[in-house]
């Protein structure tokens, strides 16, 4: 069920009303209802893969209780290994089996041997990378004795399957979300209103910005070799907007709909387009995944201890794994490497935390220096997206070749003027609104505006834009495939 579909527009109000008016009699009933609604939400795509989520949840529920019941270190470690094996085993099989077999075959072909191992053409279960990381963080936290195991299977199941963030995050930590399932929830009008506003902003980003950019980007990227360098430049810049509007739009809708039900999810994006260097970008982009890698991979590897070269090694590992997490394709690994190469110099020079303070504090516009840093960071990040969007490494390099050839100076192929208006107008509105809201937690946090008519006018404009500017082929959210 897509957040931007009519199905969800019916599903969410029904869940909201039943949740607050029918099942409010007890916390357990409410949690059971969330579990049921979440299972229905997931099954809307393919009910067959629901079993995998339940296997993952059941395993970690039992493993965590087992860990808590024993103080024997070896036994606790064994239980952790069981959880890691089950979760990463399922992820590895469904997401990476075909990729590794194909890569294995290819590497043997280089030496003249054709192993002919057959792939299985496995369909990737939606959201498996997200819920696997979420449930793993729970088990690891219990293993580290940072949190207590949950003894309530319904609350735990609802925590793992919680529909707003099940298929594309934010990847929640048990320490933040699980206690919210165990405490009574009271309807909070201000929170619910703000949730609706955040959902509206997320929908605008998805429907107007991301979906319109997708039309141009997909047309060019089906076969970049057919297009001039200029068209590829335009497509790369638009794809950078598309992926941000798509993914952060999803996160906004997820966080907003959770707030309607009385839950607070973690922030996933902090206006990353206004980053002044690559280090700041990665602190503002997909925060829940990056902090996951920090806590469960970077720090266990040694973190910032052990000198610059050790830190650089650890950072390099994070970027490689992050690349692979995004998809079973060497293009994602190359994307990770490209980002690593952009980030490592600042680690080695010790400047990676240069920009941690607020941006343009007390000023309306950035200084020339800030604007230059922002534009440079945006451009570098956009260039790495060539790997992210290309179906193969070869195609990515062909695209780069064309982008840096004379054909980059030819006029790009046209699209309808109204379509340019939707793409560029939408992206412009997104940038302006988020710039002026950069101190807020989302783009449409308008509670400071005292006049209701102004606020409602703004909502009306966004709804109107969505109605009139939505392209005919609204696609699924990009991060569903990860």
């Amino acid at each position, binding site marked *: 069920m897509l957040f931007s579909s*009519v199905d969800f527009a019916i599903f969410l109000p029904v869940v909201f009303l039943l949740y607050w008016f029918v099942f*409010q*009699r007890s916390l357990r009933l409410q949690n059971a209802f969330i579990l049921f609604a979440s299972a229905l939400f997931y099954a809307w795509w393919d009910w067959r893969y629901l079993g995998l989520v339940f296997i993952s949840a059941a395993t970690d529920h039992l493993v965590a209780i087992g860990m808590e019941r024993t103080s024997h270190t070896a036994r606790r470690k064994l239980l952790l290994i069981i959880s890691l094996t089950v979760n990463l085993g399922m992820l590895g099989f469904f997401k990476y089996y075909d990729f590794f077999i194909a890569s294995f075959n290819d590497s043997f072909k280089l030496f003249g041997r054709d192993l002919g191992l057959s792939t299985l053409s496995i369909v990737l279960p939606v959201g498996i990378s997200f819920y696997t990381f979420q449930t793993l963080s729970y088990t690891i936290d219990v293993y580290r004795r940072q949190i207590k195991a949950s003894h309530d299977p319904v609350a735990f199941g609802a925590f793992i399957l919680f529909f707003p963030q099940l298929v594309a995050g934010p990847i929640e930590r048990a320490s933040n979300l699980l206690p919210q399932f165990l405490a009574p929830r009271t309807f909070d*009008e201000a929170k619910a209103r703000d949730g609706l506003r955040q959902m509206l902003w997320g929908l605008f980003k998805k429907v107007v910005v991301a979906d319109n950019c997708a039309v141009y980007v997909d047309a060019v*990227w089906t076969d970049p070799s057919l297009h001039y360098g200029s068209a590829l430049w335009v497509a790369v810049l638009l794809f950078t907007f598309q992926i941000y509007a798509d993914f952060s739009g999803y996160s906004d809708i997820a966080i907003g709909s959770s707030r309607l039900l009385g839950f607070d999810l973690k922030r996933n994006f902090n206006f990353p387009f206004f980053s002044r260097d690559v280090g700041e970008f990665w602190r503002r982009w997909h925060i829940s995944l990056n902090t996951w890698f920090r806590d469960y991979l970077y720090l266990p590897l040694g973190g910032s201890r052990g000198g610059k070269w050790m830190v650089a090694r650890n950072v390099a590992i994070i970027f490689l794994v992050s690349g692979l997490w995004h998809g079973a394709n060497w293009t994602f690994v190359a994307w990770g490497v490209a980002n690593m190469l952009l980030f490592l110099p600042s680690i080695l020079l010790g400047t990676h935390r240069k920009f941690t303070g607020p941006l343009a504090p007390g000023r309306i516009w950035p200084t020339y220096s800030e604007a230059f840093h922002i534009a440079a960071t945006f451009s570098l990040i956009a260039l790495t997206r060539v790997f992210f969007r290309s179906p193969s490494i070869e195609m990515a390099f062909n695209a780069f070749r064309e982008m840096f050839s004379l054909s980059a100076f030819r006029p790009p192929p046209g699209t309808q003027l109204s379509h340019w208006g939707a793409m560029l107008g939408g992206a412009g509105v997104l940038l302006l609104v988020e710039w002026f809201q950069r101190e807020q937690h989302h783009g449409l946090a308008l509670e400071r505006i005292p006049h209701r008519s102004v606020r409602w006018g703004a909502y*009306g404009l966004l709804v109107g834009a969505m109605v*009139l500017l*939505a392209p*005919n082929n609204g696609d699924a959210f990009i991060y569903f495939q990860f």
Partner: protein
Amino acid sequence: MAMRSSTSSSEPMRRFLLHAALFGTLVLLGIGGYFRYNRHFLPAPRVTSNEVLNMKLSHLRHRGATPAHVLAIGSSMTMNNLSSAEVMAHFGDTSFVNMGAWGVDMVQSEGLAEVLVPMLKPHTVLVVSNLNDLVNDGRRFRLDTTRVVRYLRAWGTTESYLRNLKPAYYLREMERNRIRMHDRSNYEFMGVDEHGGAGLVIPRDRIDPQRWARKPPLERWLADEQYWALDRLCAYLGERGIRLIFLQSPYRDGVRNSMVDRTVETHLARVSKILAPYDHIMLTATDRPWPDSLFVDYSHLNGRGAELFTRHVLGKLDGAGGTTRR
């Protein structure tokens, strides 16, 4: 004992619901009013993502299962460059349906033929094409033939809209239909004649310079997948004893050069080889000049051009069939 979770009947909840309902009602009223005002321009149910094909499928539903002796399928080349009057004049007392629609490439033409041929039972299928129909350009619309069949045979009108509920699509297309249903000088003119053809009449001062200057695709852009689809289409029609007439539409003289002509010749040789085993016919228009004055852009003919083109190519038919390039 179960813990009590929340109060739902509180004042804040009442206020929240009231405001949400009020805002939702205002939005719905706005949208509803707009629909009512523009109801005459309501587009056909969005069974495919191609609005003109949806319109033609809707016409077909109303027409019912009456056989059409001559069926035309394909892209805008079929829709705009084939003159219904000339087809009727050539084939005489016959029924003719033109299902050509923008953006339909050869792969989709094959899919559509498998839906339309059993329904309309034609003895002749016309495909008007040029190089663009054999390029995979990434903008291919989604065509789910199972849905099309269900729409044509099983779903009622209301059901069809409910199953394809895309309010934004209908609103936007209604606004566009206000112009393109009547304005023949619009490139997206959809005011088709009784057979489904739509001749374009675009005055000189309204010709889009970008479209006018566009170049035909290069040879390396032509996709094998598209030729394979043509091959399958030939086989499908051949097995049923239906004659396929492949009409190659010209480019305006102003964009032709030796490279374009060579690409067209290579393409025609390949098409000819595909048609040969099935005794289908290819009719080309490359044996005479096509002055710019007959076009509205680099490949779409104007009404007069469509008449001349259709008369010219169909005039080559001797009525005996056989595998020929003429």
